[in-house]
């Protein structure tokens, strides 16, 4: 009975954690131990787009606004989120005016002003800097300080979604005083600043060891006197995902482990040790199959995989593409490789909720018979070896992806599913640094796509899908003419789609934008140029002792670490 009472009390305490968090004193909870299986290389997010680096620096540097775990925008260094309604966004959508919080100081004690924000924009927009967040500043004409606490960002075109610059951990504000001699080509010379930026966030760097470990101490000048609850923090890198999970869930050496893409049965067994729990949250990541619509035959030489090389011998037939999708049992893929970190999806744009289409949900159930019938009707007849063929063209697929044990499992499962409809599959896996690298001389990049099917995950930053849906317009088709730069891997080209994409860029109303995005998604899905498989969540683990932690799929996972308690 006594036990039960304690339990009830404990639950009650946990449910009103906000109150306890406010009462906790700064530094009272000791050390926060975080393990990332990729080590951070640098703490200047403008010079590295790697998630590990951005997350590590998000404990120190802050943007004007962050995304909350539910996907809503929340002011961090700004007073409020500017909108058209409150006058922060101009009516012609060509500028946004941010009001900054007053009384914020950098960790060295100096005042944070609008000049720092302007400087950060100029730093990233410098043509020789190679800034990784440059796309956040797309179409930005200028950034100006109206007074010490007001900043206006001017765009060269109307921006229905003006929250690119300074929203989210990828484009934070850096201190002008520290970085003023590090502009452009000089950026790499400032290792001291890049390894120990001065920030406004809850922690400051104590020691930085590149590609190994970072130790932080609480920022005594942080604006909330009770935060962070931890006096120090350690960010250890290296190793692999399974052992990172083990150090939180089984040995309890660490409090938080990031990105645990490990087979679900291994994670649930580790979780059973009772020291921590596995958490997942869903952003916009979708594991999908890209279908090659042009001919990847090596005999074509330079025309291989280009529109000029002609259509694909069998994947240009929509019946084949549809049959391939029908034959896949997505739930099995989720159960085998993802567990709680995956959901079946039939859309390439699965979230946020207002953009998610329901028109394609039929794909959630596998239908081998329908797939077989479709192929029979289309004239693809089974040969003596059980493989379908028409006019001497066999349904033999080369299916490539990056090296990763979960992906290889998915490949094997799909191969078997396709064998049931008379399709032969050859699997290939390529080192991720080659597959996702844009090396011109390599035939194995995902842009060149010298295969019939390829599989990977893509997503978009923040909550606005405009740029993401713009990936599949005709001009984005990779080809030798554009050095294979382009995101339209299937080489899909439709005038109607291009027109929708253009229209969306000029539409301000959220409802209209959502309708357009859904329509574009449905076009891609019903043409079967992409076959979505799994809506992937972020999956991390944290110790049971860690309180007030919620996995954030929209921003840096550590963006709200100042609220964490023990």
């Amino acid at each position, binding site marked *: 009975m006594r036990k039960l009472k304690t339990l009830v009390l404990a639950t009650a305490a946990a449910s009103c954690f906000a109150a306890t968090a406010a009462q906790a004193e700064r530094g009272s909870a000791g050390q926060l131990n975080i393990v990332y299986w990729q080590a951070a290389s640098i703490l200047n997010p403008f010079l590295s787009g790697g998630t590990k680096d951005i997350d590590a620096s998000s404990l120190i540097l802050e943007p004007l606004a962050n995304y909350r775990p539910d996907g809503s925008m929340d002011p961090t260094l700004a007073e409020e989120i500017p909108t058209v309604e409150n006058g922060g966004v101009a009516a012609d959508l060509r500028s946004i005016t941010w009001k900054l919080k007053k009384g914020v100081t950098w960790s060295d004690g100096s005042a944070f002003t609008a000049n720092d924000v302007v400087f950060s924009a100029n730093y990233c927009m410098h043509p020789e800097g190679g800034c990784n967040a440059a796309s956040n500043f797309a179409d930005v004409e200028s950034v100006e300080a109206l007074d010490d606490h007001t900043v206006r960002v001017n765009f060269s075109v109307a921006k229905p979604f003006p929250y690119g610059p300074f929203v989210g951990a990828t484009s934070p504000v850096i201190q002008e005083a520290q970085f003023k001699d590090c502009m452009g080509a000089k950026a790499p010379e400032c290792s001291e600043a890049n390894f120990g930026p001065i920030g406004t966030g809850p922690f400051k760097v104590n020691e930085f060891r590149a590609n190994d470990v970072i130790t932080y101490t609480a920022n005594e000048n942080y604006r909330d006197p009770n935060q962070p609850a931890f006096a120090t923090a350690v960010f250890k890198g290296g190793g692999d995902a399974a052992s990172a999970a083990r150090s939180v869930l089984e040995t309890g050496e660490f409090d938080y482990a990031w990105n645990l893409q490990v087979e679900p049965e291994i994670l649930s067994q580790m979780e059973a040790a009772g020291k921590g729990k596995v958490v997942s949250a869903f952003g916009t990541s979708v594991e999908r199959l890209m279908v090659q619509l042009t001919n990847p035959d090596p005999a074509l030489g330079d025309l291989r995989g280009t529109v000029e090389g002609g259509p694909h011998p069998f994947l240009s037939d929509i019946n084949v593409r549809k049959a391939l999708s029908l034959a896949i049992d997505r739930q099995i893929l989720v159960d085998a490789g993802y567990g709680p970190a995956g959901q079946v999806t039939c859309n390439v744009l699965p979230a946020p909720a207002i953009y998610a289409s329901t028109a394609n949900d039929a794909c959630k159930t596998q239908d081998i018979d329908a797939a077989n019938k479709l192929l029979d009707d289309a004239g693809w007849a089974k040969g003596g070896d059980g493989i379908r063929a028409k006019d001497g063209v066999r349904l033999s697929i080369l299916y490539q992806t990056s090296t990763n044990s979960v992906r290889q499992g998915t490949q094997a499962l799909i191969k078997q599913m396709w064998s049931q409809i008379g399709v032969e599959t050859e699997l290939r*896996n390529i080192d991720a640094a080659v597959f996702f690298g844009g090396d011109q001389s390599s035939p*194995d990049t995902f842009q060149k796509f010298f295969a019939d099917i390829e599989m990977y995950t893509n997503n978009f930053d923040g909550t606005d899908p405009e740029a993401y849906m713009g990936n599949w317009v005709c001009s984005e088709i990779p080809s030798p003419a554009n050095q294979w730069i382009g995101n339209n891997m299937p080489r899909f080209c439709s005038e109607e789609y291009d027109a929708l994409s253009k229209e969306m860029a000029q539409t301000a109303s959220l409802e209209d934008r959502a309708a357009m995005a859904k329509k574009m998604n449905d076009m891609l899905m019903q043409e079967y140029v992409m076959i979505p498989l799994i809506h992937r969540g972020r999956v991390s683990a944290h110790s049971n002792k860690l309180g007030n932690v919620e996995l954030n799929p929209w921003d840096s996972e550590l963006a709200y670490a100042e609220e964490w308690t023990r």
Partner: protein
Amino acid sequence: MTDQAVSTADTTKLGAQRTLWGDVWRQFVQHKGGVAGTIVFMTIVLVVVFGPFIHTVDPQFLDIRNKNLGPTFAHPMGTDNLGRDMFAQILAGGRITLAVGILAMGLSLVLGTLVGVVAGFFKKLDGILMRTTDLFLALPLLPLLLVIIMLFRDPLRQAFGPEMGIFMLIVFVIGITSWMNTARIVRGEVLALKEREFVLAARSIGTKSWTTIWRHIFPNVLSPVMVSATLGIANAIITESALSFLGLGFPSDFPTWGRLLFDGTSFMTVTPIRVVWPGVMISLVVLSINYIGDGVRDALDPRIRGR
């Protein structure tokens, strides 16, 4: 063991027709370890060659509802996390693993011994060959492999088909990147051997260089070469599994022992037995080769044979 060898040698009639290789063979079959090693090795070879005709489960068939099983009647070695039969995978993997292991080890051994003997024996070639060895030792393996895949995978795939092409590439890659240790070791031995009295004697009666190498030098460097062979086969099996991560190896649904061991390691706590099978098979092969090597070495050693 040695006593026994002596007694059998005594009973051999001196007058009977004797050849060198006949003697070696007679000595070898007296070597318990060598014979046991040969039997184990031949058994493994027979099982992986003929096993799939008896245990006819398709190694690539996924039975997702029967995943992570321990040994059962239908699956004598259990199943993996996608429900593939482990026994069938061990059998199928064994063929390819043994073929790759032995051929790659052979290539590296021949190359290494040749370079080592030539460099040690001919002073003029020593400098250039050993600096080449230094170069190969220093090459960064992974980027080199990426370059090799980029340049040769597609041409070989077209010329020999996907499986044969990759097989040849793997054997070549492992062979070409692992001969240096053997070469250095053999050269060190040859440097000392060629100053020994029996080599000087052979030279002074005008024996040709290559004859000297073949008859006097080579038999005396055999024992480190045998050790290299045993270590080499283990090395080749493990290297093959590393290659498949770069996409240079066989396709991911093509089991090999090295891969099975690596994949099984992640599931060590879920299905412990799964990682044991490939580990045991690799160890058995390496151990049996080691004992065969011991037997061959003893059989070729005239000081033991003659006693």
